[in-house]
């Protein structure tokens, strides 16, 4: 009887240990994105001030893990609390270039490639849901702006501009194209 009691106590302790382990496991995994200082947003923010276009030369491993030598890329971070931000990349329909918008905490909330380029550029306005509602209310239904809008659930984020050099001889041209990108606040 005494042995059974000790066994039951041991099983109870093991079950408690298991429950504590599961709880700690779940809390640790869920808290990594908010606690990490090695996430992409933190790294991009440390490269330079908001809205400044920063070429990723020497920081290519920030991209998708291992650099593509045929890709030229630059980034700019933004804070939508100060107003919507317009991201522009002068790009024709030839070759490949793109704008991707990532939010703090991870994840891309919008991306556009040059297959959707108009008037020699790709352009997108990043906004918060409230700013998007204000902008939609100001829209003239008879004269739509044609503006591409991307709504983010977080105020802070960053844009990545990429251009692919189809041949090694085009790498400088891809870098020049990326250098023409702009990040600016708009009304």
């Amino acid at each position: 009887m005494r042995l059974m009691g000790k066994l039951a106590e041991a099983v109870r302790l093991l079950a408690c240990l298991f429950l504590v382990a599961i709880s700690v496991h779940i809390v640790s995994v869920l808290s990594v994105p908010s606690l990490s200082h090695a996430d992409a947003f933190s790294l991009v923010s440390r490269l330079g001030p908001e809205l400044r276009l920063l070429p990723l030369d020497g920081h290519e491993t920030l991209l998708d893990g291992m650099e593509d030598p045929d890709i030229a890329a630059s980034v700019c971070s933004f804070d939508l609390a100060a107003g919507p931000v317009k991201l522009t990349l002068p790009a024709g329909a030839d070759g490949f270039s793109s704008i991707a918008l990532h939010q703090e905490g991870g994840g891309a909330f919008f991306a556009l490639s040059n297959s959707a380029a108009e008037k020699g550029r790709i352009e997108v306005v990043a906004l918060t849901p409230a700013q998007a509602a204000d902008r939609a209310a100001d829209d003239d239904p008879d004269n739509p702006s044609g503006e591409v809008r991307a709504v983010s659930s977080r105020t802070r984020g960053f844009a990545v501009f990429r251009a692919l050099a189809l041949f090694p001889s085009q790498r400088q041209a891809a870098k020049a194209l990326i250098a023409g990108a702009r990040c600016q606040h708009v009304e």
Partner: protein
Amino acid sequence: MLRILSILVVLFGGAAVGLRSAELALDRNVSGDLVRAGAWEMRVSESLVSADPYAQAERARSGVIPLASGEGFTLTARHDSQGRRLNGRCAYSVSGATPAARFWSLTLFDEGGHLVANAAQRQGFTSTELSRDAKGGFAINVGSQVMPGDWLPAPPAGFVLLLRLYDTPIGTGVSVTPEQVPAITRLACA
């Protein structure tokens, strides 16, 4: 006294097991978004805001900026089509189909994730610079010894191939089948 000791064991032991298991889970990429097709593996929800918690944690620790859905998609090969680890002491042919994409590039890295310097100054190919057969097919030869045709030099050690698809429907709910990805065929080993 025994009671207090038991509570301490449960709390500290449980916390240690929980932390260690979380670390192991992230190190071993247990997130459910890893999908395999032929020799290639891919993270289907890597760039999504709504990625599963393990994928979000792995992303936050790695600091990488994955290609976004609508921008492109990355496939990785560490093994040949027969499941043998890629090694530059052997020669390989990468050929066959590629998933629908406006452009793609194939790049070679060492197992540490670094580009490999070589006399040919060749670390990869884009889809536009390959020689094609009459049906539009391609064959990239990979190995540490000079090979005819489109040759991608490899180090005489383990290596990794990355296939990046630019402007592709893959990643927006479109899956990849083994028939849609290039086969990696081992030719001969030194």
